[in-house]
Structure formats: C-alpha cells, structure tokens
C-alpha cells in the first residue's frame, strides 16, 4: 500500500510535468501556425512574447487539478477544453481584433476553472444503480448497435455513395440533403454508438469485431464527406494502442501531445505541410482561434441567449436567422465556424461576463456522464468517448448532447456491465456457452 502511494505521488508530478510540456509544445505550435496561417487571423509578435508566456504560465496554475483527480469522462473533456483555453490565452496576446482582451482572458480562465470543478470532482455513481445486465444481453446490445450502424449506412447510401478526395468534400457536403432523422442517426452512430461498440470489443479483446465497428465508421465517409469520419477509425485505433501502454490520464494527454509533436516535426519534413495543417492547425489551433473570433463578433453584436438551440429559437425567437456557424462564416469568411461550449454556450449565449456561470452548468451536465460511467474501466471510457470529445471541442454542448448522441452514450455507459474487462474469456466462444 505505501509503495502504491509513493507511485501515485510520482505519477501526479509526472502528469503535471507532462501537462506543462504539452502546454509548451502547444504554444510553440501556435507560433508556427501563425507563420503559415495569417489569413486565418493567427499572428505572432516577438515583442509580446513575454506577456504571452506569463499568460500561459498563469493558465498552468489550474493544471494540478488534473493530477490530483482520477480519470473520468469529464476529465478527458476537461483536459481537451483546458488545452483550447490555454491556446486562446496565448493567441489573445497576438489577436488582431479589438475587444477587451484582459477581461476576455479572465473570462476564459474562469470559465474553464468553473467547468473543471464539477467535471473533475463529481465522479460518484448515480443514485439509480446500473441495471446489472448479463454479458450475453450486453453482447446483443452491441450487435444491435452494429446493425443500427449498417442500416443507417445503407439508408444514407441510397442517397449516393461516392469516394471523393479531401479537396472535394466541401462541395459534396453542400449537396447532401438527408432527412433530418437520418442526419441525426448517422451522427449518433459515428460519434457515440459505433465508438462505444468499438471500445467494448477492444476492452473485451474481440479485435475482429472492433475492426468491424471501425470499418462501419470508415464506410460513413463516402456518404457524409466528413474529415472527422475519415479520421475517426484511425483515431480510435491510435487511442486503443496508447491506452494499452499508458494509463488513461497519461493517454489522454499524449493523445494531444504526440500529434502536436508529429505535426511540429512534419512542419520541417513535409514540404506540403498537410500533416501540420490537419493536426496543428485544424485540430489544435482552430478551436482556440474560434474563441477569439466569437469574442470579437459578440463584443459588437447581440448575444444569442441560447437561441442557437433550434427549439428555443422556435419559442423565443432569435436575432440571427441562420445557424451560428453560418453567421460566423458570413462575418469572417473562414468557413462554417462552430466552436466549443466555452464559445457557444458561454460567450455567444450570455456574453463574457456571465460565461463562467453558463460553462459551470455545462460542467454539471458533463458530470452526468461521469456518474453514468462511474465504475467502468478508465480505458473503456477513454476509447468510447474519443470521437464524442472531438465533437465537444468543435461544436456546442447542446449539439453534442442531441445531434451527436452524447445522451445515448451516457445511457449506454449506465447499462454497461461494470465487469466489462472480465468478459475477455468469450474470445472464440459462442455467446450461448458463457451462461
């Protein structure tokens, strides 16, 4: 037991060091991004370096929270949002826009702190205990999920199934006109259902079935023309591999840190800079930059008051007729710009002064995910939420909950047998024999 405690102390300080290293790599990455993507409002100025470094170090003051709390869904979401917030604090010193940057930085750091408190600390199980499903029933649920994925894919394919290059996806996506229900279903399959099935099979070491789930996700690319869908299976495999070698918390940090380092190396090695563009620009820098754009836009435009949520818009009306992403595209011409809950539920909905309160409530909602997944293997939570977290850092929480099926994933976590890893004995055996 004492040895375990010692190891835990070492782990905590190791984790802190890893977070600090990631923040350093992230800031360096943003300097390189500014060198290449000035047309996307990324800038860097040597004269402001000192202030930016002080800002980033100040943001690091929150990081011990990560090292002293155990892994949960909220932890993973919190770390990704924290990375975005630190990125914003860095970028804000070089921002070309005119708004109160000091207040904006205080608002973002307070918001992420307010989010982390419930998201990291509320991890106890729900009042209603998980229904103790048998492994065979759970296996049937997994099969139903796979069938749902296949049927949804088939339904989407009736509207067209074309493998196109990355350069053509935007034009093709504009042509898509699925019925609303099918649109929702395909998003839920991609972000929640199939990653859940993949994670279950991975943890149970049924790799062929996990591969099958990943293949179904990949097959959604020719019907959705989404980069996220194309990357999702490889992302899941990468995280599965990471989580085999490291604990969940370390894996969650490395999941951002390693790609950032790869992107930085690719900046010099890859002349086309495509790898750098996909990882360091699109995946890491854009969510931070979106906060800067949202701050600038809503510093001189009316707030949404949550009217970006369709049913609220129908009841209470809205200053904006278009979706928020389209409004931002019209304002800045950088494409349909969605942003994380800090920007959407926070800045856009209630303004920078009240953003921490709104983001705190988002933290409470994410904590429901912690409660539903309480008792499940950390590795399983990490893998099954991987695609959903990518949605969370790029779109609003309400969209992730409803359109991307976070609510369904919470429900699935709640009913998942807590001894999931012990089901590995099923390997190569027919389901009927287990009972």
């Amino acid at each position: 037991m004492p040895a375990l405690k010692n190891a835990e102390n070492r782990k905590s300080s190791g984790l802190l060091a890893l977070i600090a290293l990631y923040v350093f790599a992230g800031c360096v990455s943003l300097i390189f991004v500014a060198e290449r993507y000035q047309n996307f409002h990324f800038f860097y100025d040597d004269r402001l370096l000192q202030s930016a470094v002080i800002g980033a170090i100040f943001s690091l003051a929150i990081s011990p929270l990560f090292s002293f709390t155990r892994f949960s869904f909220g932890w993973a979401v919190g770390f990704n949002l924290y990375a975005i917030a630190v990125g914003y604090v860095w970028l804000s010193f070089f921002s070309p826009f005119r708004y109160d940057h000091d207040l904006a930085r205080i608002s973002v750091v307070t918001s992420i702190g307010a989010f982390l408190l419930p998201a990291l600390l509320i991890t106890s199980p729900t009042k209603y205990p998980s229904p103790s499903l048998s492994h065979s029933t759970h296996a049937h649920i997994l099969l139903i999920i796979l069938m749902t994925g296949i049927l949804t894919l088939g339904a989407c394919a009736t509207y067209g199934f074309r493998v196109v290059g990355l350069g053509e996806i935007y034009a093709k996506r504009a042509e898509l006109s699925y019925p609303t229900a099918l649109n929702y279903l395909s998003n839920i399959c991609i972000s929640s259902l199939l990653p859940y099935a993949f994670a279950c099979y991975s943890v149970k070491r049924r790799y062929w079935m996990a591969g099958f789930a990943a293949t179904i996700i990949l097959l959604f690319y020719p019907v959705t023309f989404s980069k996220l869908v194309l990357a999702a299976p490889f992302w899941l495999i990468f995280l599965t591999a990471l989580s085999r070698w490291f604990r969940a918390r370390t894996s969650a940090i490395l999941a951002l840190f390693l790609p950032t380092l790869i992107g930085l190396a690719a900046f010099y090695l890859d002349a086309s800079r495509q790898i750098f563009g996909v990882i360091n620009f699109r995946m890491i820098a854009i969510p931070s930059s979106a906060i800067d754009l949202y701050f600038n836009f809503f510093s001189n435009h009316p707030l949404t008051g949550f009217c970006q949520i369709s049913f609220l818009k129908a009841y209470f009306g809205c200053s904006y007729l278009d979706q928020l992403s389209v409004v931002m595209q019209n304002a800045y011409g950088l494409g349909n710009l969605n942003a994380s809950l800090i920007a959407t539920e926070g800045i856009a909905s209630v303004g920078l002064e009240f953003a921490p309160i709104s983001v705190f409530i988002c933290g409470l909602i994410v904590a429901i995910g912690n409660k539903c997944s309480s008792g499940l293997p950390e590795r399983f939570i990490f893998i099954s939420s991987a695609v959903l977290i990518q949605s969370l850092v790029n779109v609003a929480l309400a969209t992730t909950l409803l359109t991307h099926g976070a609510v369904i994933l919470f429900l699935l976590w709640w009913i998942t047998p807590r001894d999931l890893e012990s089901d590995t004995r099923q390997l190569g055996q027919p389901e009927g024999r287990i009972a």
Partner: protein
Amino acid sequence: MPQVFSIAWTYRWVFLAALLVPFCISSIVILRLPERYTVISSIELATTLVQGRTQLVEPADQVAKLAIDQYLPIVLAGLETTQSSNLRAHAAGSTVILTESGPLASENRLKDLQEKILGFILRQQKQQANVIRENLTINLNSAKRRIESYDQQIKTIDNRKSEFEARIATQRRSVDTIQKNLAETLRSASPDARIQDAFTNEAKVREFRERLHTEETFSHQIELARTSLDSEAAKIISQRDEQYLTASQNEFLLNSIRDAHVLLQPTKMSGANGPRLLLLILAALVGSLIFATIIVLALGQFRSSPAR
C-alpha cells in the same frame, strides 16, 4: 484514488481556510478597485474619390497611430499634467475611435483630452483635404484656360475657313468667266478666217487655257489648305473635349471631397462596471475553490504517503 469530497471533508477546516482567505482578500481588492468608466469618442475621417472609389485622404490606422504617438504627447504637455494617459485609438473603416478608461474623478480631464485630440485630427484632416482641393482647383483652372485657348484657335480657324471659302467662290467665278471666253473664242474662230486672225485666235485660246490651268491649280491649293484647316479644327475640338472632360471630372472630385467630422463627442459610457465586477468576483471565487481543492487533494495525497 480516494473520493475528492471525503478528502475535502477530512480536511474541511483547511479547505475552508484555503477557500475563504484568498477569496476574501481578492474580493476586498476587487471591491476597493476605484470605480472606473470609459470615455469614448469617434471621428469620421475625410474622404475623396479615387478612380471611382471613396478613399480616405489618410489611412485610418495611420491617423489612429498619429493620435497616440504625436498628438497625445502634445496635448498632455499642453494640459500641464503629470498624469499619464491610457488612451487607445483604433480604426474601424473610415472612423477612428478614441477610448480611455479612468477613475470617476478624472471625467473632465479625459473628455478634455479627447476633445483636443479630435481637434488635432480635424485640423490635420482639413489640411490634407485642402491640399487635394488645391491640386484639383489648379487642374480645373488649367483645364478651363486650355478650353478658352482652344475656343480661340477654333474661332481663328473658322475665320480662315470662311476666307478660303470666299476665295474659292471668287476663283470659281473667275474660272467660269475664262471658260465662257474660251468657248466664245473657239466659236468665233471660222475655218475661212484670215491667216492673221487665225493666229490671233490661237494665241487667245492658248492664253485662256493657261489662265484656266493657273486658276484651277490655285483653286486646288485653296481646297487643300481648307481641308488641312478642317483636320486641324477637328484635332483642336477633340483636345478641347478632353479638357472639358478633365474639367468636369475635377469639378466632380472637388465636390466629392468630404471633410472629417466628429461622429461622437467625448461621452462617458455607463453600465459597464457592474457585470465586470461580477466577473472579477466570479474569477476570485473559482480561483479560490480550485486553490482550496488542490490544497486538500495534495494534503490528502502527501499525508497518506509513507515518507510522511
């Protein structure tokens, strides 16, 4: 890892102290911050038309920079104050916006400062607009003078043309007379006329023909001269039209120059203090909560380690 809340409960007094002490201190600091507000003013810069597009006589960014780098030190020196200024100037389209936050007591000073800077900008903009106006006026007057000169030239050409036309008419009459005399001489010359008369008639005919040739050559030359005058007149008319166009363009540009004008006189912005204070208090609360949580978690971890 033990539950966070149970650790917090175990070290509840430490938690409370770690929460309340920084929160109270920071709250006191925040509440004792002097009440600040912002004075804002804006000015629309002078514009002119360049190639059909409205253009500022000087880029707004440059004017904003001038306001801070040049005018502000002059105004501060003129106010004979030792206080510094955190005035900000930024460009938004054709407008320069001046903002400055300060404590309640300095409202008049901030307004006065912005008024003076606006005055500097207005004067500098007027000077620049006047330089453009003068250039355009010079061009306009020059074009008008050229038009007058061309008109004079055209008038002279017209006079010469009418002279030529009169001479051509005289020449034609003269040619007609010669031709008539020649025909009469030819008719009067009979085959049975005396040899002496025949010689005389032949000499007359030759003389008429020579005179006719001379007159026709002269008429031809006059025609040529008139044609040359026509082309010269056309050229001058085209040049005059060009000058008309230049003059009208300059006149239009002259009329299209818009002087700089103050859009918003220095005004105190109200109501920004409340929510700002709330955000700072919220930040203090969240920061203190995180600090307290980290303290008790660290304490929990280190207390239970065997090294302690």
